[in-house]
């Protein structure tokens, strides 16, 4: 569960965005789409805490785990500065991933870095031979990541960009509103909270049978012990706080209470 691993490759894939390959065969073997790692970005006491990062995909034959991330603060910028050969401490795979049925039609909605966990899901769904439609929005076409890889997976890909430089001009929520949600057993989504909130409403209105979304919250332990990563969930006896790290990060859209 906790490994000292080596950085095999790291490359910049867009402004402030990096993809990191680490050699971690046990993690590659065990990982499920939607799970995450807790990564220690520094060997000093500052920054102190590990950072949660989704498993973007794995390469089991080569024992690799890939992470796709954006530099937003000190931890991620320290990561971006690490060269190949440098070591990293990781913890994982953690959390409960997405449901991956062996048969059916599925819709995947990604906003920005939401593609990080969803790419792995799409791969799995396609590997099982399922039909997958991907709706993917970003700021501009340069921020639409892994497009070639998605095309190689032969999914139905619909994009949206805020400036219209690729696909629909607007957000991915706008795109879905305009185009309608294709029939699907499960709709999956990941992205910034306002998008997920809007999507949850849309899914409810559209009568989507099952919607799974993945949430983010600041984390302490990452293993369910500290109760730091609370998210409000509709329980049988009223709202309860659940743990993103251990009860999620994947939740059903309708059970999340947005504050």
């Amino acid at each position: 569960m906790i490994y000292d691993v080596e950085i095999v490759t790291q490359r910049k894939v867009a402004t402030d965005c990096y993809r990191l390959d680490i050699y971690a065969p046990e993690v590659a073997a065990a990982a499920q789409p939607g799970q995450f790692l807790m990564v220690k970005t520094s060997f000093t006491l500052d920054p102190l805490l590990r950072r949660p990062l989704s498993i973007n995909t794995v390469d089991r034959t080569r024992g690799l785990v890939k992470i796709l991330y954006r530099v937003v603060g000190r931890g991620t910028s320290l990561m971006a500065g690490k060269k190949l050969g440098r070591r990293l401490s990781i913890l994982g795979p953690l959390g409960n991933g997405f449901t991956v049925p062996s048969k059916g039609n599925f819709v995947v909605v990604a906003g920005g870095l939401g593609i990080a966990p969803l790419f792995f899901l799409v791969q799995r769904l396609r590997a099982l031979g399922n039909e997958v439609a991907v709706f993917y929005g970003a700021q501009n076409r340069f921020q639409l990541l892994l497009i070639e890889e998605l095309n190689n997976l032969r999914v139905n890909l619909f994009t949206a960009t805020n400036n219209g430089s690729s696909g629909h001009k607007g957000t991915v929520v706008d795109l879905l509103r305009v185009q309608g949600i294709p029939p699907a057993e499960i709709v999956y989504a990941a992205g910034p909270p306002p998008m997920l909130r809007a999507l949850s409403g849309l899914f409810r209105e559209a009568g989507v049978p099952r919607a799974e979304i993945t949430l983010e919250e600041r984390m302490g332990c990452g293993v369910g012990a500290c109760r730091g990563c609370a998210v409000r969930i509709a329980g049988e006896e009223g709202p309860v706080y659940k743990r993103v790290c251990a009860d999620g990060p994947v939740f059903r859209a309708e059970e999340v209470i947005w504050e």
Partner: protein
Amino acid sequence: MRPVLEVEIAGLKLKNPIVTASGTFGFGLEYEPFVNLAALGGVVLKSVTLNPRQGNPPPRITETPAGMLNSIGLQNPGVTEVVEHFLPELKRRRVKVIASVAGETAEEYELVAGRLAQAGVDAIEINLSCPNVSRGGMAFGSDMEAVRSVTGRVRAVSGGLPVFAKLGVLGKDVVETARTAAAAGADGVSLINTLPGLAVDPKSRRPVLGNVTGGLSGPAIKPVALWAVWRVYKELGLPIIGMGGVTSIQDVLEFIMCGATAVAVGTGNFVNPRLTMELAGGLDQALSLEGVQDIKELIGAAHLGSER
């Protein structure tokens, strides 16, 4: 010859001085993928209240320089669940269990402690940093009358179990609080609880934590914790469970040399989930290197040469 790591604190025998800090290690089971619980001196459980508590609104955690703020707000499943579910599991693992008791009133502390004592925990820790509802939310620990009454009541229902009063350093002088708790029946003290703190997100211009303020923990507070341990040991000679920012063997030794008999790891678990095990295992070698035959030689050792 391998150095002796066993310590006895207020009558509680621990196979080594390494324990966990309340609230950072859940009920122990969460850390089983990383830690063999039976290899630790003991496990201090998350503070428990009479009824389940949902805790504070998120965000509940934010990082600070060499530390973190938390405002969990005592989210816990209530004493019944702990007694029925977690304690039997822990017993089977043959680990010493120190249960942490919290409440909004002195009565609540008493009820919770009584239930836990009956259920067979090995010791009780009283979390005195909880807000006292009958005193407008002022922490129990900064009100000597409340310290006396809570400690006395818990003592009375704890039978022969060792009782530790867990103290912060704000509000009242920690030596005075410790003295008051000891006079009211505490066998020892746990030092220190988090310091109060706050962080602002300059973008949103709002406090980061949903609860506005939180508790500061981690290496940042280690010097303050050592100061508190040093003073209480020097002035009162009470048995002490020391904690605050422990991340290394060197930190453990610093606490012991200041006067702690046991040392608790809190935030350090988040950085390295195997830390408690590594410390318990590494003490052996560290002591051998220094030629120390029994860790008890080191308790309070830094006071030698200072007027005590």
